[in-house]
């Protein structure tokens, strides 16, 4: 379900080794990059984390949820507000994430009953609603004037480096947990909800329960990522959480392959890098993004990740087949529409 199966490939040693290498790299990277590059890298990690949530709710349980920008904002504002009022930062993040989960359940329970398309619209509306509340609830969020953020510092490390370590660690832990989960019961049940739809009831699985749980998990991930984002921005205004953010998240998810965990990282890297490159082009940024999106859906509906996998396979000669993602095949095909 999440790509290359290291266990079945029979090389647990390679897995452990690569984890150690990555950990060392992550620890050492701040000393080799400029502050700006580190900031970009941190942005990638933060966006990847937010989109991990979308991988779970869209890719695994098959519901197109468009409220992630709202949860992202909840995370940013909540953590900033609470820590400004005396909460230790990690506590603030945790409490905000719980609140986001609660909101997710509140929104999820009535909406997951809906057919996919209506669910998308409902979550889009809720996401927009949350963003509007950020602008209007001035006493909490400072309205359009924004909210300053108390920056984290670990010992003698400056905020940028501290943020990098925290973000990388959180992403790593989240990936590990989700990876394990995808191979066990909860992951299977979500998959069943996505691919078997109506038949899940006969298996004793309550589709609604799992859909809501997936949505709540995505809310938590979005919220934690948002809290980190608040740190990155150092000053939060509602304009950071517009509907453009929804589109950006979708691009990440599309590029990475909507049900691949590691795809979130690839997609986030793509998004952030392209955004940086297009800064100079300014107004043309959206146009280029749109064209890229259109072309990608038209010719590469599985995202870049399957392309990467097949390149790796060709280079290493390994024969494992990568399963088709939900973008390429319709789990419930209607009929072949021949042109």
């Amino acid at each position, binding site marked *: 379900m999440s790509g290359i199966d290291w266990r079945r490939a029979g090389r647990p040693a390679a897995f452990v080794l690569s984890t150690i290498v990555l950990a060392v790299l992550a620890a050492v990277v701040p000393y080799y990059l400029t502050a700006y590059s580190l900031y970009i890298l941190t942005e990638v990690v933060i966006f990847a984390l937010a989109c991990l949530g979308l991988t779970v709710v869209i890719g695994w349980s098959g519901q197109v949820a468009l409220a992630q920008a709202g949860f992202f904002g909840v995370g940013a504002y909540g953590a900033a507000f609470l820590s400004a009022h005396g909460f230790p930062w990690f506590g603030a993040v945790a409490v905000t994430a719980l609140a986001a989960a609660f909101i997710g359940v509140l929104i999820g329970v009535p909406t997951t009953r809906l057919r996919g398309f209506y669910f998308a619209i409902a979550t889009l509306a809720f996401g927009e609603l949350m963003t509007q509340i950020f602008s209007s609830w001035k006493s909490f969020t400072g309205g359009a004037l924004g909210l300053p953020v108390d920056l984290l510092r670990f010992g003698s490390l400056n905020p940028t480096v501290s943020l990098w370590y925290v973000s990388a660690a959180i992403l790593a832990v989240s990936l590990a947990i989700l990876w394990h989960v995808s191979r066990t019961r909860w992951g299977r049940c979500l998959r069943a909800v996505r691919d078997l739809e109506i038949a899940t009831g006969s298996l004793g699985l309550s589709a609604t329960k799992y859909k809501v749980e997936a949505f709540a998990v995505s809310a938590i991930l979005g919220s934690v990522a948002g809290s980190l984002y608040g740190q990155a921005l150092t000053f939060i205004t509602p304009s950071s959480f517009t509907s453009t953010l929804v*589109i950006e998240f979708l691009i990440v998810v599309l590029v990475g392959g909507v049900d691949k965990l590691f795809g979130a990282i690839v997609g986030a890297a793509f998004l952030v890098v392209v955004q940086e490159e297009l800064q100079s082009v300014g107004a043309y940024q959206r146009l280029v993004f749109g064209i890229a999106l259109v072309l990608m859906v038209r010719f590469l509906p599985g995202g870049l990740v399957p392309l990467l996998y097949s390149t790796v396979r060709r280079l290493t000669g390994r024969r494992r087949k990568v399963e088709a993602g939900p973008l390429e095949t319709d789990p419930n095909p209607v009929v072949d*529409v021949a042109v």
Partner: protein
Amino acid sequence: MVQVIVGGLQVGSTYALMALALVLVLKATDVPNFAMAEMGLLPAFVVWVLVDNQVNYALAIIAGLAAGVVLGVVVERFFIRPILRSSHFAIVFMTIGLFFVLNSIVALKWDSTPRTIHAPASATWKIGGTVISQQAVVAVVVGFVIMIALTLFFRSRAGVQMRAVAEDRVTPRLLGVRLPWVFRITWALAGAIATVAVVLAAQASVLNDQTGQTLILTGFVAATLGGFASILGAFIGGLLLGVVENLAGAYISTSAASAVSLLVVVLVLMIRPEGIFGQARVREV
């Protein structure tokens, strides 16, 4: 108060028309077209450019409609039909991408400077103490006429074929209906209707690169109210939405107005997911 309601009806008619375009495309080709408003925005600017250059209003409108039709057909043929075999995610992403592209094109060429399309009927009437603009009447009448026309169209041979395709992709083909042709007509019609919607919206407020964005959301809301099944439902839904929004804006606050459409869609979806006018569908095992 009456003025507020009339204004609401005017705006509501544009919502209704956008909803009609959305329902058309969704029902016949199963595509939720997030780019629908932008597909009407570009032709609307064509109209503006022509009118601004002293072209006769009626001609400009016809040109705009033609542009809408062409855009609809082009999008359908080159961007939608090739990926219809893919999953729903892909199609949604495609329309979102198209939204981006079209919106950026408009923004780059014309940015957010507000513009007006100078229409012949811009006078106002005074009836019993309230001022009613001719434009408002035009908007509602046009919306009504298009709604009736569509209803009649669906009784015609072409329309019946479209309805058959909306229900079931397989059987109509066996009976000789040519899907590509149905799809093309659907998108062409939708493009034209969306153009009308945006032009009327421009008359109600301004024409700039933002004009499409409220319209798409409210269009979806109105369509949802109508259960995505009924033309009359979408029309009434749109009018209702416009009126309620205007009332909220006048008597509560402006931010309440924009929140209204969001709350309405949420409420309706929770209470009656099939819309006010829709019918619950039985899923087969």
